[in-house]
């Protein structure tokens, strides 16, 4: 598997650390309530298809990258810096 780091270009998957769904970027306000927080920390859309998830270029530049990807085919559709990708 190859992933394109926005800074470094296409690299092997083994240079990256995987965290999980990119919804981790959408941190609720402290007082958003139990449901919003459960949703944020534990529940997942977990699609069989296109998803956005977070990868860290640990063996490279240290960028957190949002990868738009298909979980069924492993096709990588787009990569963006997490710092610029917050929804």
């Amino acid at each position, binding site marked *: *598997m*190859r992933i394109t780091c926005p800074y470094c270009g296409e690299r092997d998957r083994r240079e990256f650390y995987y965290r999980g769904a990119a919804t981790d970027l959408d*941190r609720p306000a*402290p007082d958003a309530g139990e449901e919003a927080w459960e949703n944020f*920390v534990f529940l997942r859309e977990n699609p069989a298809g296109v998803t956005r998830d977070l990868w860290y270029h640990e063996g490279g530049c240290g960028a*957190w990258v949002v990868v738009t990807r298909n979980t069924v085919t*492993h096709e990588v559709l787009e990569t963006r810096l*997490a710092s610029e990708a*917050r929804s």
Partner: protein
Amino acid sequence: MRIKGKGLIDRSRSIPFMFDGVRYSGFEGDTLASALLANGVRLMGRSFKYHRPRGVLTAGSEEPNALVTVGSGASQEPNVRATVQEIYAGLEACSQNRWPSLNFDLLAANDLAAPFLGAGFYYKTFMWPKSFWEKVYEPIIRRAAGLGALSGQDNVDKYERAWAFCDLLVIGAGPAGLMAALVAGRAGADVILADEGSRMGGRLLAETYEIDGKPGHVWVDEVQAELEAMDNVRLMTRTSVAGVYDQGTYAALERVHHHDGRHPHGAPLETFWRIVAKRSVLAAGALERPVAFRDNDRPGIMTAGAVRAYLNRWGVSAGKNVTVFGNTDDIHRTARDLLAAGVHVAAVIDSRHDAPLSDDYPVLRGAQVCGSSGRKGLEAITVRRPSGEERIQTDCLAMTGGWNPSVHLTCHMNGRPTWRRDIAAFVPTPGAVPGMVPAGACNGSFSTAACLREGIAAAGEALADLGVKLPEVAVPEAEDTPYEIAQLWAVPGKGRAWLDFQNDVTVKDVKQAAVENFRSVEHMKRYTTQGMATDQGKNSNVAALAVLADATGRGISETGTTTFRPPYAPVSIAAIAAGAEGRGFRPQRFTTSHKASVARGAPMIEAGLWYRPSYFPKPGETTWRQSCDREVRMVREAVGVCDVSTLGKIDIQGPDAGAFLDFVYTNMFSTLKVGRVRYGLMLREDGYVMDDGTTARLGQHHYLMTTTTAAAGDVMKHLEFVHQGLRPELDVCFASVTEQWAQFAVAGPKSRDLLNGLLEKPLSDEEWPFMACGPVKVLGVEGRLFRISFSGEHAYEIAVPARYGASLFDILAERAEALGGGPYGMEALNVLRIEKGHITHAEIHGRTTAFDIGMGRMVSQKKDCIGKTMSERPGLEEEGREQLVGLKPVGESKQLLAGAHLYNEGAEPTRVNDQGYVTSVCYSPTLGHMIGLGFLADGPERHGETVKMVDGLRGVTTLCKVVDPVFFDPEGGRVRG
């Protein structure tokens, strides 16, 4: 039988080798199988279940029968295909899965019991009595099963892993692959051409075809010479592309030195390649399939293509009196090749009623072979014709049921092949692997001309969107005969007709599976083990599928296939893992004091990837405890020195550094004064403790964070995530400086005395109070000093650039010794911290909260931080949680054990009564008894209570008093004094 003048072997070089202890000789270029056939050896193996005598079936890596063990001792290699292994002087091969010998195998008795050992028999029996499964049945089955044996010795051979990158990977160097590589190479693309054979050419080496009027192998040599001359083309023989992975990543195994048995200095036996290719052309050819008929597994019965390969490539006739059977024109080609070589062809049995006739050999049209005889080698076949059955004497039957395109690699990314009725075969489904274009026989195009044409076209298609323009190339002249086939899978009749030769799966087994409702192809496979042998069903799956389709009244395409999974051909574990043996498994990290510690006799122990000294033995000390106790007393009474460089150090700078730290720590850091250090607690977003450590404020916009050794990498990732992902607006940046700084704890009442000689200015409590930090000059070197303490003593940590670490450690250790102290190791460090109730990852093991470790109040109520909201979930701070306590033995037993569980004094030690567990224990030389830390339900409220520690594993029960986790100097006077 060797045929004069035939074959691509070097007859000037005779090579001796051994098989089952008998000395034979072959020629340079022979495989073990061709050389044995040339020597008249037909029996080469035994089948898996019934131990039926077997000969070679094929001439390639798909061989199911002729599996042998090569070599002995640590280099012994089981399950080597005799059809792939090239001979070399000194080669020693043995047959396997037989006892006492290949010729006389006692387990062949299984064959007599075959009626009771059919598909799935073991699911229906061996159940009584219950205890017999592990004691009797399973050991017998295990011993009878298996093929070859591992030596049981550690690997001694060298293997390598490598990377390669290219524009175009061409898989297979037959006519299609060679043409694809040639045109791509001429166009200037970076090309890798890989073929599993020992030389390029594929079927062109096995057939008598001509290309552009030249013998096929001559054309191959010319193309190869042109490719070799190109800098942009890499030719890889003996290289099997084993797997297809995402985004154009391919795994390939190169057999570097199996063929010559030599181990030249530094050269590996095998190399495991990771090839990253922008595009690929699959030119993997096709594999011939046998026909199932009664007793079709006798040595001497082989695929027609294999018979031609042995004849044309190796100059060996597989028999003296050959019969040919099948359903395509290939059988006639086989007969012609044999006749041309002077071999007698007894009959050609063509299942097609409209088969062509010949003047040169008898053709039996519309006939089928329905049986064979010959105990350990074929003697005769029985042929069924409309007119009746007929017995024909023969020592070799060349059979074909048609060809299966090698679609395997196109299925590795879940592609399903498409059934083509006209050629009775599965072909790749377009787009099955992104960027891969199939060409030639693997694409269902079997004529030489079609292969050449498709090779060119495939290279063009693959490279088109890379912007590579192909030169005009004329398609070489070659045969273009159409492929005409009449489906023929299994000849009806009594007896056992083999499908999966190695696993002994017969047509009856598949039919029985269908009767028992194992009708799904996956069910049939799993129930009968069809296709689960070392060839992964390459020889048998399609025929088995056809039999199942017939038995269930469905079509083949409706029945579907099982999934081909990587690897295409088996790959040794040693190759994929090359370099990871022993210490190569993970990197080793060494501190700057490593050598000095070793020189002082300290046993070094693993701490994550680091090595740290366990203790520093002194003359006269015979146990670790003696050294450890001394080192603890040394720190408590004089001064000790300990390398703490393995702790993670993260340099944090920027105007928003303080605000950032407030967000990742539970407590405040923006309010920390410059020149001060604070202990910080970090939570995960789910509210549990992630890590702890001290962070120093070195300047207005400059902090230095320390993490635990274990969590250094995780904390770095975490900080970057929180910054880039959650708070990108904060102006702050991070750099790991763990390896840039060597840092030493100098701890004990005499620590200040020790340091005073090294620093520019003497230390004072006024300038350097507890938790102060700042720059210092250490013997003229710019360093940093932190007045912090893990031991609970008056202590400092002193840091210098790593290049000065080794010399500073020596100086500190010597000075400490002069003051009655010395270096101390991990054991003493651990005792010192337990005495003070300081936690490590034994306590913050990912399931504990700030509340559990008594630090609930450290979660600031004035601000938000990572983990704060979730740490307030009811279950994380309510009654009944196991919380940190100290434990002191009070009963007869004085022993504490980490990992033991806690119970109320009078309770039975059963799970339902469990009250907690012990995390850290030590003998405290300071207090004169064992002490422990642990977690106990509602622990802080139970100080003074007696609980029972039970360690069922080690048979220890100890009554303990629950106490405050800080055993020593609870007021903290020493650290400030």
